[in-house]
Structure formats: C-alpha cells, structure tokens
C-alpha cells in the first residue's frame, strides 16, 4: 500500500511551538502536483528543441559561408566568435 | 542573535601563512565565512584552501561553475581540501578577491553540505567568478576551520577572514 503523501504547514500567526501541522495531500493536490511536473518537463523539452534548431541553423549558416569562400578566421570575425 | 560575528581576522604587515578558527561555538545553525583576500602568488588569481576539523583526509568534494570573462567552465573535484578563488599578486593592485562560504547545519552528525560564491577582482578581461557546491564527508560538528593559500605562501596584509554564525535565537 502506498502511503498518502503529506505536507507540513507552518502557520507563523500561531505561538512558537504550535505552528506546525502535518496534513495529508488531497487527491486534487496530488493531481495538481503531477500535472505541473508534466507541463514543466514539456516546456524544457520545447526549449531544448529550439536550441538544437538554433545550433543547426548556425552551423548551416557557417557552412554556407565556407562554401562562398570565406576563411574560418573571416567567419569568426564576422560572427564575433 | 541571528547573524552573529564570531571573529574577524585582518592580516598584518608581513602576511600570514595560514588562518585558523578554533573553538567554534556549537549553538548555531549555519556557519558563514566571508573572505577578502590576496596572496603572494605571482599570478592572476589564487585559491584559499579550506579544511574543517583539521581533517586532512580525501573527504572534500566540490562541483564548480566558473566564468572568466571569455568562457564558462564546469568541473568537479575530490581531494584533501576544498577551494575558493581569491586574488593573486598579479591582479590589479590594492584589490582583493571576495568569497562567501556557507556551511549548512554545521553542528549536525551528517556530512556537511556547503555553498560558496567567489570572485577574483581584476581590472581586465580575465577575472573569475566561481560558484561551487561542496560536500565534506565529515560527520563531526564543525569546531574548527583551517585556511591557507593554495598557490602562494602568504595571505597579504589587509586580507580579512570573518567567521559568522547564524543562530536560531
């Protein structure tokens, strides 16, 4: 049997020593947590894909400049690399 | 109460080969070491070697993320001391590298987790910013901290090392 996940709530409006409560998560809270993790991962994957495409485009651009006869040093100077 | 200075050391004329804080009070939560240091190493940058509890074993691990004005670097280390970057004696005159080193839960009976942010101050393109994640495999409470230059032999005059304790009350 899986233990129900719990949260701790520290209510600072209460006197010291009486502030902590340990409360089981509701089904809604569990679902929300899981959904947020899925969304965050999807956004990370999307960013990764954008960066990979940028890198590929940059390399293709560089290759095109080489094909036009520019030297590596000229390309680096042009691109500020 | 809160963020408490335990002791501050300012290096005098003639320099100091090492600095040690001993008898650290054991009623705090975290320890913070703030450094402003320059060594006699004839180079841009040096490092401060840090050990705890006179532990010279290979218990010090860190991961670093570093920028040097031209590129960004990352690496890892395990060895007999840990390090933070400070100034060497070829850095811009009258400048000192700054480091902030926090040891979390320093009185616990677990291994010690620490974080450091350090900069090497230099009026040139080449200057280092150095972030580190540290782990000291020493389950004893931290009762002493040992500091020494890594590449040089002396901390130079006006270098300072300040040890703070963050307390619960």
């Amino acid at each position, binding site marked *: 049997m899986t*233990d129900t*996940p*719990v*949260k*701790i*709530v*520290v*209510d*600072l*409006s*209460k006197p*010291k020593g009486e*502030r*902590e409560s*340990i409360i089981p*998560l509701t089904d809604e*809270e569990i679902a*929300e*947590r899981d959904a*947020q*993790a899925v*969304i*965050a991962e999807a*956004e*990370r994957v999307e*960013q990764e894909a954008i*960066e990979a495409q940028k890198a590929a485009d940059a390399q293709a651009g560089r290759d095109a400049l080489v094909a036009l006869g520019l030297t590596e040093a000229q390309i680096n100077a042009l691109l500020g690399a | *109460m*809160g*963020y408490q200075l335990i002791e501050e050391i300012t290096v005098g004329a003639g320099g100091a080969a090492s600095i040690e804080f001993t008898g650290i009070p054991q009623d705090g*939560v*975290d320890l913070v070491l703030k450094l402003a240091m320059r060594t006699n190493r004839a180079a841009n940058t040096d490092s401060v070697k840090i050990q705890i509890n006179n532990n010279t074993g290979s218990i010090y*691990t*860190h*991961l*670093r*993320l*570093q920028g040097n004005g031209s590129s*960004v*670097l*990352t*690496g*890892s280390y395990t060895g007999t001391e840990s390090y933070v970057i400070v100034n060497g004696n070829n850095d811009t005159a009258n400048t000192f590298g700054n480091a902030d080193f*926090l040891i*979390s*839960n320093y009185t616990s009976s*677990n*291994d010690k*987790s*620490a*974080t450091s*942010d350090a900069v090497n101050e230099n009026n040139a393109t080449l200057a280092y910013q150095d*972030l*580190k*994640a*540290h*782990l000291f495999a020493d389950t004893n409470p931290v009762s002493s901290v040992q500091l020494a230059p890594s590449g040089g032999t002396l901390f130079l005059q006006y270098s300072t090392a300040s040890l703070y304790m*963050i*307390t*619960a009350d």
Partner: protein
Amino acid sequence: MATPTYTLIDSVTLATNTANVTFESIPTDGTYGDLVIVLTGTMAVGSVGHGDIKFNYSTTGYNVVHMDGDGSTTISRAYSNQMQMRFSENNSFSTTTLNTTIIQVLDYAETNKHKSVLIRTNRADGLVAATAGRWADTSAINRFILAGDAAYEAGTTVYLYGIAKAL
C-alpha cells in the same frame, strides 16, 4: 547590544518524507524587508528531481534565468510565465547527496513591484546553479510553498530568516 537584523523566523526539520513545506502568515507589516530561505536535504526520487517554490496561492507568473554546471556541461536557459519557480534547469535534488539551496526574496512585502528572487542550489555530486527569478505579481508575499518532483526526505531542514531594513 546591537539590534539584530537577520533573524530566524522559524524552522522545520522533517520527521517524515513530506511532499511540500508551507510557511504561511509571514509578517508583511514591515518587520522584515527581505526573506532568506535555507533548505538542506534530499528528495525521495528514483534518481534525481527538481525542487521549486511558489508564492501565496499563485501558479502563474514565474519567470527565471537558470545557469547550471554539472561538472562536465554548462547550460543557461530562460523561461517565462511558469507555474512554479524551479531552483535550476537541471535536477537539483537526489536521494543520496545533500543539497543546500539558498533562496533570497527581495522586498517580499512590497506592493509596488514584482518580486525579485535569487536562488543558489548546490549538490556536490551533480549540480551547482544560480537562478535569477521574478514573480510577476505586486502582492505582498505572506506564504510560500517548497515542493518538487517528489517528497523531501525525513531529516531535510528548512530555515526561514527575515532581514530587517531598519534598526
């Protein structure tokens, strides 16, 4: 005796694995100007997982720039309008190695600005990272929730400090 200006407000040491840790009813009456949260511990994940923070009851408006190193690769990424503010791009917590995370929330009680957050998160076997964050909300922060991909393990500690801006 000098007036203390960096004060422990409260702390928690987890006695059991805990999905999230909430501090609420944080004073917003000007007693403190900035908050500092120090989180040290491990996470009950299969391998590694993310830690994150949310303010008040909000699941929107979290913008970050991450800068990470893992010992062999560096990465920097920016995200806007996230549902939470993750501590880093890469996974910050593991079940085996202590992580120390320091979260600074600047001018947390002001109602005339978005909230700036500086995060350093560290795990000596896999991550050193710095994050600059902005919660795009002018509400005073009276509550925060530390959560992540899995529960924080027993023994994890959270310390909440307030920094006063006046003596």
